């Protein structure tokens, strides 16, 4: 089956990576790449596949991070269970925002900005109320054990996020080949035509936002467990939303491997430029400049590099 060649090869490489590059630095790098690939893919299945651009995906990310952390810190619920609860909460928030916005016919930039407004509202609320720790944030007590989703070694985190990344790519692959995915593409291209062909655009959009929200929220839980501290700005801030969109767009929106490629390159460029110079601001000048150069030469995202190499394969 040639369709399976790419994902299987990628998985093999990813599985072997920490066994070859064993330092914590290398593994941490891998974790970051996969982490961004997961949340980038979460954005991509809504923004790229279904054309529902959002500037506020942090709302799902933060929901996930806070959901499992509150359950864990306040109620003593194991974060592995919390992960599922987070995904459910993310799906719920996704469905809620989508239902509300799409019921009232929001589109394009209007939808993008309303998600941002929701993310801001969530940030301000978490900041204001007590049980989220308010502005103090939430600290997850150190209790190193795999059972506690606090692996003593980074490699444990690596394989966890790898599993999530694999799941996210599997979702994207499935969307490329399924009826649901075809309907999303139709909605992205032309909603009126989609409706004329019997697609319940409202329902499909709510479904994909729920799926995207769930995946993103799972990423949020992972983040909380990896860094053991969250606060409203870190998880609900506009920065996170932009990072997700950037990873996906730089890699190639609407493609299966775009977010992964984007995550890899942006993490690499981020680390690389920081290592390059210590002058204040210079590293980010280079980073931003590289961003522009990438877009200038690869207008469809980095994925084009691979297409050129292996011949154009259409979706």
């Amino acid at each position: 089956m040639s369709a399976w060649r790419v994902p299987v090869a990628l998985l093999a490489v990813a599985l072997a990576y920490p066994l070859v590059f064993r330092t914590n630095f290398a593994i941490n790098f891998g974790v970051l790449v996969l982490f961004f690939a997961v949340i980038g893919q979460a954005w991509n299945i809504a923004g790229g596949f279904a054309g529902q651009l959002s500037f506020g995906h942090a709302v799902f990310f933060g929901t996930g991070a806070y959901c499992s952390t509150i359950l864990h810190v306040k109620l003593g619920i194991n974060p592995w269970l919390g992960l599922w609860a987070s995904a459910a909460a993310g799906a719920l928030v996704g469905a809620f925002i989508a239902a509300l916005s799409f019921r009232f016919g929001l589109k394009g930039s209007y939808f993008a900005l309303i998600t941002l407004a929701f993310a801001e509202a969530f940030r301000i609320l978490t900041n204001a109320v007590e049980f989220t720790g308010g502005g103090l944030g939430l600290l997850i007590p150190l209790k190193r054990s795999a059972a506690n989703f606090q692996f003593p070694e980074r490699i444990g985190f690596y394989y966890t996020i790898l599993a999530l990344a694999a799941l996210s790519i599997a979702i994207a692959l499935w969307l490329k080949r399924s009826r649901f995915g075809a309907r999303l593409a139709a909605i992205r291209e032309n909603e009126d035509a989609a409706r004329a062909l019997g697609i319940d655009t409202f329902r499909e959009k709510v479904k994909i936002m729920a799926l995207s929200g769930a995946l993103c929220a799972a990423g949020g839980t992972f983040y909380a467990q990896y860094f053991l501290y969250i606060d409203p700005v870190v998880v609900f801030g506009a920065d996170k939303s932009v990072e997700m969109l950037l990873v996906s767009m730089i890699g190639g929106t609407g493609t299966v491997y775009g977010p992964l490629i984007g995550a890899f390159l942006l993490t690499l460029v981020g680390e690389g430029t920081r290592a390059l110079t210590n002058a204040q601001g210079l590293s980010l000048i280079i980073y931003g400049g590289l961003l522009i150069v990438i877009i200038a030469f690869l207008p469809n995202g980095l994925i084009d590099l691979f297409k050129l190499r292996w011949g154009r394969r259409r979706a």
Partner: protein
Amino acid sequence: QAQARPIKVGLVHPITGFLAYSGGQCRMGAMMAIEEINAAGGIKSMGGAKLEALLGDNQAKPEVGVSVVEQMQEAGVSAYIGCFSSAVALPATQAAAKYNTPFVIDVGASDNIVNRGLRNVFRLKPGFNACVDDAIAGLGEINKAAGSAAKSAVLVHEESEFGTGTAKLLAGKLPSIGIEVREVMKHANPTRDFANLALRIRGLKPDLVVMSNYQNEYVLLARTLHQQKVDLAGMFSVLGGGFNYKFVKELPDVAQYMIDTNHWFDPTNARAQAMKKRVEAKGDLFTFEVYLAYNAVKFLADGMERAGSADKEKVNAALAASTWSDHFMPYGPTRMVNGQNTGGKAAILQASKTDIDVIWPTRFASTKAVFPKPRFS
């Protein structure tokens, strides 16, 4: 004679983004200390080994902070100095703890950083808990001396961990010195306009406004209260983000009479004054970040000197047992409890139209407080 291998010290500060200024100031202070130590012959117990700074930018993001820590670990770092923001310090110290690498917090207010039982983490400066205690003690004395001019206060604080934490503690303790808290007001970061806040403060008619905010909001708030001519006995802040020489220079009318509790150098110490001159000669400001980072490095170097080796266990032990007193802060000798120096103390300062003076503790004071301040009318 063969040169001893240099000892790498990782500086993990937010050099870009919202906290870039503070991060840059931290880095400058730390670098000055490293240069000074090297010029004086390095770590003598280790054959004159020089300190070598590894510079890192944590961008005020937890994930970047951890990356920087790991990257420096690869490069063979012996100790870290950082991180300015608590949100980064928490995961960064945790990452360093895997290797047991000493981590000296120069700035970073949260007490959680040192309370978590990580044996490699040390903080020389007092946490905000201690700062608030000092602020209360000092304010109590100043107020008493003024015949209890202040009987009521409104608290204004920024919304993140630093402001919220500080305000919570203050609200609990102000009544103990006879000051009633009329209201606690939280504001967002950034806030673009304080006109309404000023309005409400005027309506509440407090004697004091007690603030804890970051630099820009600090200045904006002070400016608005001044413009709106809100009459107060005084404006008092704890770790006031914008309270520095620049503020005095740029907005002298606004700054005049403002009182701040902050990390401050001992003004009677000649080395502190010399360093202040050096910094100002470069066109920079001698802000608290500079000397806190400077002293953090010095503290670390002292520990290494006593450990006589870069062995992490030994350095940690030496730091934990430190009694270092060669700083130029208004502190007593160092005494570490769970990584927190309990010998540290904050100072209370007041701005005049041209300068900043220490007004408390009296032992270090360079002038007497003007309190209550003159009324507008």
